[in-house]
């Protein structure tokens, strides 16, 4: 997994409250392999493409927003279905960070597991940044995970909170299975007791 340290990129405002993962990737693409060459097109597909496959005027289709690698979103981004394909579709478009007031819990966790940084800022700050991004197309945002700081388009800085373990995962690009296997002895000891005391499960 690619470590996340400091990152700066063009950002695009996505003004959709409660943007569910069905919008991020429609269910009909869920059977596709994530290395499918068409995967990048699946991101926000039905907002970006008409039924005849021509592009809509959706902001992510517009230059320079189409180069964005950071999304600035509204409340409850990624609610709904647990589909990790939503993260795969973001990553297929080289998106490395999301900024939103709140995230769907499962989507948030899926982001962390793939090295995509979800940043929680207040609704007021997210609104403010989105307005600035509309006013200055192609403006960049810088994120320093070590310092837990977002530098907005007008250089204003915003501190953000992140769970310490999630931070370690992202900074080091750790995947969970390797982290878990460090605890193999504890797992085996637990299992032994647990299986003995809960015979009704096994």
């Amino acid at each position, binding site marked *: 997994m690619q470590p996340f340290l400091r990152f700066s990129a063009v950002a695009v405002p996505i*003004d*959709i*409250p*409660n943007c*569910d993962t*069905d*919008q991020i990737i*429609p*269910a*009909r693409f*869920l*059977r596709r*392999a994530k290395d499918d060459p068409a995967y990048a097109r699946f991101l926000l597909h*039905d907002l970006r493409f008409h*039924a005849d496959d021509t592009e809509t005027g959706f902001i992510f289709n517009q230059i320079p927003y189409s180069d964005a690698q950071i999304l600035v979103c*509204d*409340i*409850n981004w990624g*609610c*709904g*279905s*647990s*589909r*990790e394909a939503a*993260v795969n579709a973001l990553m297929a478009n080289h998106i490395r960070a999301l900024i939103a007031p*709140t*995230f*769907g*819990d*499962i989507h948030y*966790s*899926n982001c962390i*597991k*793939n090295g995509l940084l979800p940043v929680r800022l207040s*609704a007021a700050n997210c*609104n403010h940044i989105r307005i600035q991004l509309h006013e200055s197309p192609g403006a960049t945002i810088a994120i320093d995970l070590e310092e837990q700081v977002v530098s907005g388009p007008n250089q204003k800085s915003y501190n953000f909170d992140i*769970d*310490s*373990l999630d931070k370690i995962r992202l900074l080091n690009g750790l*995947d*969970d*299975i390797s*982290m*878990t*296997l460090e*605890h193999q002895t*504890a*797992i085996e000891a*637990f*299992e032994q007791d*647990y299986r003995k005391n*809960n*015979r*009704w*499960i*096994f």
Partner: protein
Amino acid sequence: MVNTPRSNGKTLFEKIFDRHVIVARESGDALLFIDRQLIHDLHYRSFDELQAAGQTIRYPDQLFATPDHSVPTTAKKLTDIPQGEMHDTIAGLQRAADRIGFTHFDMTDPRHGIVHVVGPEQGITLPGLTLVCGDSHTSTHGALGCLSFGIGSTEVKHVLATQTLWQRKPRNMRITVDGTLGPGLSAKDIILAIIRHIGAAGGTGYAIEYAGSAIRQLSIEGRMTISNMTIEAGARFGIIAPDDKTLEYVYGRPHAPTGEKWEEAMAYWRTLPSDDTAVFAKEININAAAIEPTVTWGNSPQFCVGISDVVPDPTSETDLSIRANMESALTYMDLLPGTPINKIEIDRVFIGSCTNSRIEDLRQAAEVFKGRCVVVPTLVVPGSGLVKSEAEREGLDRIFIDAGAQWREPGCSMCVAINGDVLLPGQRCASTSNRNFQGRQGMGSRTHLVSPAMAAAAAVTGRFTDSRQLSS
């Protein structure tokens, strides 16, 4: 009430969580032991990916699979499905089951069905367990006092390989529903009312426990409808304390413990209800008596009103972002503010999904269909082969067929709409499923979420109709 000081008491959720902690870190993260995992067809690639990474399945005996998302409801077996994505996906799960040897209820097995219907039916879901599935509606199993939650595919593989999962203990919220639910109403109306009250993100970061007399009065199936849609309020966990009804439901099911093991399990289950001194970070109270048959009008389940109400006016919303969200929903749904809900005409009806495809749901729909005819195409999809055969034993299939509805094979069907059951662009559907998101039932589809009785009432009248006026 927020952040009352901690006491020594534990919540139901905390009791189960704590019992499964292998490693606790100062950060608040815990490595949890996972008792059981359910798998559906969309995760078939996980097995090949793990094999390629040289990893094995740690507890194949605690893994239970059934294809549901991709199953055409007109097919009875794999060879009925033409070559293509659906076929490959279902065949992929079969291949993994054959290679690894985990329990797999394939399409020809009478126990086959929607994973969240099959789990409780087979006694795979039990009180006090940790149970996961790569599907957000895994919250369903919380109705039995099980700590169940939806996970992503990386986590699915993690559980397959290690039988553990890293989790941060969420805050606890209790939603108490007291009072008596009016006649002709159901669990679906309660959960929609709850989501309307707390909002689609109201439960984010929380584990919700449902309590109160109206919850106690529900059957286990009704409770599953409540827990199922917890994720629509943002929470991954929707748990209900096991009581006598729960034990009666679980007893004798194929994977439930028996004899001495049953006694051991029951001794543990009896300790599970939240202590009187347990503290919840948030408490919500709902009056069941005030709930009406409910219909969603927008593209988030929080956007719902009673059948006697009208489509709301976005200009009355003070939050500008929500106002814009409402306006875009009304445009997408082709509705005007002020339109009475019972004047909205529909094109299709879907009765099914992990929310409302159990026998009790089908009975409620049949009650309305009896002696009437549908005026729009109507699809009735049972949640499992066992639900289907029970419905046929009771003659419900005749009622549906005589009314002109289609009676199909079990699966997710038109809830996720990737099995060929799909709305055409612009079509408006009264649906007993759980999500009214844009495009959820097909590109350009317009979904209104309702209870089974309300869906049946819409099917026979062609518009939203108070089902209480039609009950026979």
